[in-house]
């Protein structure tokens, strides 16, 4: 079976640019609005990450926390997240969607039931922030069986031996965390250093798609365009917060941000 995630990277590579990955929180700030945002930004994004919000997010910075709390306050449930993803995939059949969140939500839903639901909703991949390697081995195998990409995370603190093992057991995509930070921190490492670490991963196995995330904004995205893909999350969540505060149309504003991000890496 063709992996839409692989296809998306191939398409970007053919256009001689990195893939653009966006992150938004499902249900931020309403179910309908988050679906509208997703549909609208996917005109410019290659892969859409959709967060299922948790109220104790230990790896997220302020912007994504705000989005997550807002979505939960507005009553988002895990089945709504699936419904949003499903509706999105009905209209955008070839845009991959990756669900991202914390393990307790999957654990409470039941791993197998969760994956079945992912399959039904045509989810292409999963990122589970607090299920590191090797603890994630059995779950990632279950994902593979269902042709769902389990995305392994790698950080600047990952040791060489771990890195080797993680790459060996990874699926189509690996997520490199740019620096020691929660999501949305200010980029405190030079782009040069980030890319140096990036190529250390990439050169181990060229067939894997390696993306960089954490701290990427309109200001910094261009300097990292040598990567296979770049993830922008907090900058988008921040724009949603700003639009709500100013009573402006979040869909239009966020789409403009994503459009500008895309133009910077073309």
């Amino acid at each position: 079976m063709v992996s839409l995630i692989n296809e998306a990277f191939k398409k970007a590579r053919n256009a001689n640019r990195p893939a653009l990955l966006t992150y938004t929180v499902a249900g931020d700030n309403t179910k309908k609005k988050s679906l509208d945002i997703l549909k609208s930004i996917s005109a410019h994004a290659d892969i859409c990450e959709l967060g299922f919000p948790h109220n104790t997010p230990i790896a997220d910075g302020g912007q994504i926390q705000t989005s997550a709390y807002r979505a939960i306050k507005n009553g988002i449930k895990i089945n709504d997240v699936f419904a949003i993803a499903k509706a999105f995939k009905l209209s955008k059949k070839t845009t991959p969607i990756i669900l991202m969140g914390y393990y307790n939500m999957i654990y409470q839903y039941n791993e197998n039931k969760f994956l079945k639901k992912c399959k039904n909703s045509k989810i292409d991949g999963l990122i589970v922030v607090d299920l590191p390697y090797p603890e994630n081995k059995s779950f990632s195998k279950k994902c593979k069986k269902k042709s769902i990409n389990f995305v392994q995370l790698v950080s600047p603190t990952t040791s060489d031996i771990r890195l080797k093992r993680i790459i060996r057991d990874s699926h189509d995509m690996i997520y490199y965390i740019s620096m020691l930070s929660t999501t949305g921190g200010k980029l405190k490492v030079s782009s040069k250093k980030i890319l140096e670490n990036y190529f250390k991963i990439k050169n181990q196995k060229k067939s894997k798609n390696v993306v960089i995330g954490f701290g990427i904004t309109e200001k910094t995205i261009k300097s990292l365009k040598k990567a296979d893909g770049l993830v922008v999350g907090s900058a988008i969540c921040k724009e949603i917060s700003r639009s709500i505060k100013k009573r402006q149309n979040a869909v239009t504003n966020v789409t403009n941000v994503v459009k500008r991000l895309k133009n910077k890496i073309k």
Partner: protein
Amino acid sequence: MKLKKGIPLIDQHDQFGFWGGKFGGSFIPETLKKPVEDLTEEFKKLRKDKKFIKKRDHYFKNYIGSPTSFVKLENLSSYLGGAQIWAKVVSEANGGAHKIYNATVHALLCKAMGKKYIVGDTGAGYAGKMLSMAAKKFGLKCKIFMGAKDIKRQKPNCDAMKKNGAEIVPVYSGSQTLVDAVSECMRYWVSNCDNTHMCVGSTVGPNIFVKICGWSTAQISRELKAQLKSEFKKIPKKIKLINCVGGGSSAYGFWSEFIDFNKKQIELIGVEAGGPKKSKLHAAPLSRNAKIGVLHGAASYVCQDNEGQINETESISAGLDYPGVSPIHCFLKDTKRARYTYATDEEALNAHVMITKFENLNPSLEPSHAFAEAIKIAPKLSKDTIIIVNSCGDAKKDKDILRERLGKN
């Protein structure tokens, strides 16, 4: 699921860090894998290092003031009738609570690892106060994360932290209590783990933090064992060890030497925070049958909804106001070695009033939960039953709450 004899409970986990195959583990972001592994290695090495043990014992004795006393509460016992009630007055420890043991060990570990900065979470403010003391003692820069609600209700401890030169970082997210403080502290560590050591204030969090904390507070039961032998010539036949349980660090420390005993001889009773009598909220995941969930890097019984969102908790006692609990207490519950119950805010307050009326003892609201259970069961028990309560904190920090609720100074 079975307890092993002759092995400390903190070491009875599998290779992934799970007790009983399902409690604990290390559910952490990738970035923290390396610092957690480094800490695990360092601790493994140091706990076998004679020089390090000597240093620890030196500070336990000369800095913390071990051993803390073990006293009979004569007046309370004769008033209630039934069992004899004793207290292990751990609140005599430097700083006024058991949190000093864990804080001192973490400061020593931080030094040994060559890190200059130490951060920690706090609820009642004791973990923060003690960490700030230890940091000052060992020349470390210290940041304490504390919920904004707790900063308001535990002012005396906040003043102490500031006096010791620590920076208090107020946490405004969620319920603005301990759960949010721990989350924020972990986030800070994710961003600064290259030069900063994190101290988790209780036997919670990723596996290694449960172990370090338990290893530190175990001093309490080592002392008690010796004190029992000198007081009674041998370990008495009927003992009940009653301890409050929030995260569970003082309870583990109080019990660790006695877990191998038959439960008919030494019963272990943990008392959680039942919250206000009329409220649906509580902080009692063990005794009110919460489901297993993952919180702050470990699997344990957690107050949560069906979806896995963590519930808000409510308790008069900031130190017990936490939706999760130590994986080792979950293990003790499921193996039926310990029994867990809860006391309401009102019961804890009444217990505090009764203890201070009869005895020269001033237990904080946390151990007042344990005293509430002792007061409840003592009259029904035989005279040769020895109830021992861990009076693990001093009520000085609670003066504002006590004044408001009891109208006293």
